[in-house]
């Protein structure tokens, strides 16, 4: 892969080199390499079973690669679990979003890391701080949710997606991996999430974006990487390709 071809920053945020993964006799991934710069959106395209999920699970610490290496900010990394990846600033937003529907926006953004203030030595959860911080983060991303103190089950799909993204950003994610972020959304909501991705990009976040939807891919991505049966079959700059070519790569025509 050409190194100097894309991205606003000179050194890559995230690099995967010839990563392989087998599950029993199945080669889920064969020597796939990936490059992600700050402020760049890389779309992963491919049919079901092409290895997209395996690849992002290796990056996010869920799976271990059998071969190859990962580098993050120039340093070689090896994650034992997703928590370590998250602590480094690599956040993954899965389709189910991992939100607690019964809690409000602030509580979800701070889930597991709730701030506490002490009154007479006793710890009290600082709900106001959580709400204010969550609001600040969301506002910076141009997300507007009224009544932040409502449980998020009352939010729309797009708003929930925004909360999940906001949480990642609040905890200083530099790499955001999004698995089908628009799959469960209506059209206006899809557009909002696309805007949000553009916005994150402008803020220097590197995004790996999995989608079946070629319209979405062409709308927000800078580069498209196509996987087929665990192998990288193509990587093209979005501005230099068209949906037909991507489909041809995906199905191997």
């Amino acid at each position, binding site marked *: 892969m050409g190194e100097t071809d894309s991205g606003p920053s000179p050194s890559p945020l995230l690099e995967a080199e010839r990563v392989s993964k087998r599950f029993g006799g199945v080669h889920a991934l064969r020597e796939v390499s990936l490059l992600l710069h700050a402020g760049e959106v890389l779309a992963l395209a491919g049919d079901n079973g092409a290895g997209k999920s395996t690849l992002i699970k290796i990056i996010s610490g869920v799976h271990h690669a059998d071969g190859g290496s990962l580098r993050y900010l120039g340093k070689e990394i090896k994650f034992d679990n*997703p*928590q370590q990846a*998250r602590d480094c600033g690599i956040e993954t937003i899965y389709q*189910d*979003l*991992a*939100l*607690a*529907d*019964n*809690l*409000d926006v*602030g*509580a*979800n953004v701070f*889930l*597991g*890391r*709730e701030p*506490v203030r002490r009154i007479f030595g*006793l*710890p*009290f*959860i600082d*709900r106001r701080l959580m709400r204010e911080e969550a609001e600040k983060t969301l506002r910076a991303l141009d997300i507007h*949710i*009224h*009544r932040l*103190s*409502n*449980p998020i*089950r*009352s*939010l*729309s799909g797009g708003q929930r997606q925004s909360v999940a993204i906001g949480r990642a950003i609040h905890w200083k994610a530099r790499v955001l991996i999004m698995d089908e972020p628009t799959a469960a959304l209506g059209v206006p909501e899809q557009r909002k999430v696309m805007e949000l991705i553009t916005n994150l990009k402008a803020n220097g976040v590197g995004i790996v974006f999995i989608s079946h939807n070629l319209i979405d891919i062409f709308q927000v991505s800078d580069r498209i990487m196509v996987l087929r049966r665990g192998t990288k079959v193509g990587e093209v700059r979005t501005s230099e390709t068209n949906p037909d070519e991507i489909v041809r790569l995906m199905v191997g025509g």
Partner: protein
Amino acid sequence: MPDSISSRTFSVLTFFSDDYGSSPNVRKQIRWLDLLAAFRAWLFLAILLITFEIWAHVEYDSTFFLNPFNVKSIAIFTVTPLLLGLGQTFVIISGGIDLSVGFTMGLSAVVTAHVFNWGTQFGSPVLSLALAVLAGLGIAVVPGLINGLLIADLRVPPFIGTLGMYGVARGVAFLLARGTTVPVQNGLLGAIGNGEIAGFPNLVLLTIAILLVMHYLLSQTRYGQHIYAIGGNVNAALRAGINVRNNTIALYILSSVTAGCAGILYTAKFSAGAAQAGEPVLLDSIAAVVIGGASLFGGSGTVIGTVIGALIIAVIQYGLVFVNVEPFWQFVAVGVVIIISVLVDQIQKGVGKDG
């Protein structure tokens, strides 16, 4: 109320007004239902008190609620179902259930009585009281710990695990009591159990202290917040780095220990420990939690709600006796309240979905 969970019932309203702007009529209807659902337990309690008040005036030309003796009796009536219900509240919010609390209470009651009697040989009733309380609490930890390990580590469904512990605690409690009640030989325990401070029964004061601690734990600490998260979406809790295993074990120990407190107070009140002390109260404790607004699917519920739920049950039970209705109607009345309470919840959620 400041905490985020208690405001959940207002969510439907905001959703529609923010995003889609439904007609004002629908909105008004939803607001009305939300209010009804949020305050249904308080409403039930008020209706019951007014009903019994009128009933007492018409039938006996006397007052029900304004009589301090009645108030005190109801408060004492509330103690056991409330204590069992407090631990149960935590467990139910996490998405579980604890069927073993009734006999854990009995086990604690019996052990407290035995240890108190054994301790009197040292000549100091205060020492034997301290030993008895420690033993009563200590023994309660055991079923809770086993429940927690079964559920958190061995993935036994809470209903089954605690049902097994229901049997074990029941058997052990009766074995320790040798099938009978264990009378307490020294008067100190009974004096405390039936004593008052400034007109307030000690039992009630102790229960209020425990419920304040539980309310604080649930609504103000990270631990409480994590219980809501576990009940709301256990995968989200896990991915957020919450130690679901340890929290779950702590939950069932907490539930057992509050049941143990109920057992100790029982022995103090009756100057005797009985294995069956908590048996009839188990379902009342679950009813109190549900009437108080918790969902058996987990994720919602409050200590205050459970307090109101337990009061409702106590008012029904005491009130029907007071107006001289056959006691079996109590079961009918409590059952009806449970069903109405859940129906209000369903209707409110249903309107939210369809509207």
